[in-house]
């Protein structure tokens, strides 16, 4: 009987000790005012001969505190056909840094219609969807970058810098 009580007492004491140590680590390990982790992104646009693109001197969008589940960051880019022929314009991104390729999504749309809407890393090839521009015609595209709520780890303190590239193909016969 005494041995059983001793065993139980010892076990409870050990458990209490573990709990105390765990609580101390949890409290002492976090600074009182530590900010939650976030990601940063900067999306620019690259010039091309057949299109006048704006902005070029500054990013289309830039954010330093992206977190999963938030709306993300938005921007606009204007493209104008400066050739004498009608163009089918497609786009892709080129990576400066690839840390957010799997975590962040990008949506580039024209008049509410998405040209691309997928993980950032999936936009390295020319988009199948295109914007058709008559000679001299211009359009303003919206761009949004966000991290989905259930993004896999790796976005914390990550930096995703990319450039939007546009390509205008002459529409035959126009």
């Amino acid at each position, binding site marked *: 009987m005494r041995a059983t009580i001793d065993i139980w007492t010892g076990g409870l004491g050990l458990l209490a000790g573990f709990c105390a140590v765990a609580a101390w680590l949890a409290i002492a390990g976090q600074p009182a005012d530590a900010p939650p982790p976030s990601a940063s992104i900067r999306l620019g646009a*690259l*010039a*091309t*001969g*057949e299109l*006048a693109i704006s902005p*070029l001197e500054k990013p289309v969008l830039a954010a330093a505190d992206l977190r999963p589940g938030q709306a993300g960051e938005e921007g606009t880019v204007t493209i*104008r*056909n*400066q*050739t*004498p*022929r009608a*163009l089918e314009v497609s786009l892709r991104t080129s990576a400066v840094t690839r840390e957010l390729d799997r975590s962040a999504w990008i949506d580039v749309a024209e008049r509410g219609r998405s040209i691309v809407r997928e993980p950032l890393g999936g936009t390295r090839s020319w988009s199948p969807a295109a914007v058709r521009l008559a*000679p*001299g015609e211009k359009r303003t595209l919206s761009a949004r970058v966000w991290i989905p709520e259930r993004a896999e780890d790796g976005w914390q303190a990550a930096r995703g810098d990319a450039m939007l590239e546009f390509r205008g193909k*002459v529409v035959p016969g126009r």
Partner: protein
Amino acid sequence: MTGVRRLLLSALVVGLAAVVAGTATWAAFSGTTANAGNSFAAGTVSLTDNDGGVTLLSLTNAIPGETATGCIKVTYAGSLAADVKLFGTASGGLAPYLTLKVTRGTDSGGTFPDCGSFTADTRDYAGNGAGVIYSGNLSSFPSSYAAGITDPDNGTGGTETWTTSEVHAYKLEVTLQNNTAAQGQSGSASFTWEARNQ
């Protein structure tokens, strides 16, 4: 349990502990370090224009003094700093009787080959007027990169260094000279802007 058995059991436990400790100790003598994820990428040199495959200049059934004018925008999309030169080819019996003037500048808007938004550079590069980088016979226009016209810097007068997303515009004017020998002649020309990294 007898004392001997207890002793043997203790020895077994100590022995097992020693084996485990020894194994862990041998493992502590090895270690590795690595540097993974190395990547290599070359820079790019890329020059494009806004002509959409359409010709810039055309003179048809021209009379002496008639001029054809066109503007073209050249855009650099490469990642490496580059020098750009302009040269071309001219052929046909009319080329010696055509005067070509090339003016460098900017174009704030417009569509190829309109010059309505063209503004010449302020610097008089060669004594032929603001922004003019060539003025002479079409047949004398440089025909190779080596002899080509080095794109100049409006600010310094030296060589322009082209960087990513840099854009410049060029106004080309071709005038038929007043020369009887030009009658009935024809000709053609192409103009090339070439970038080479520094």
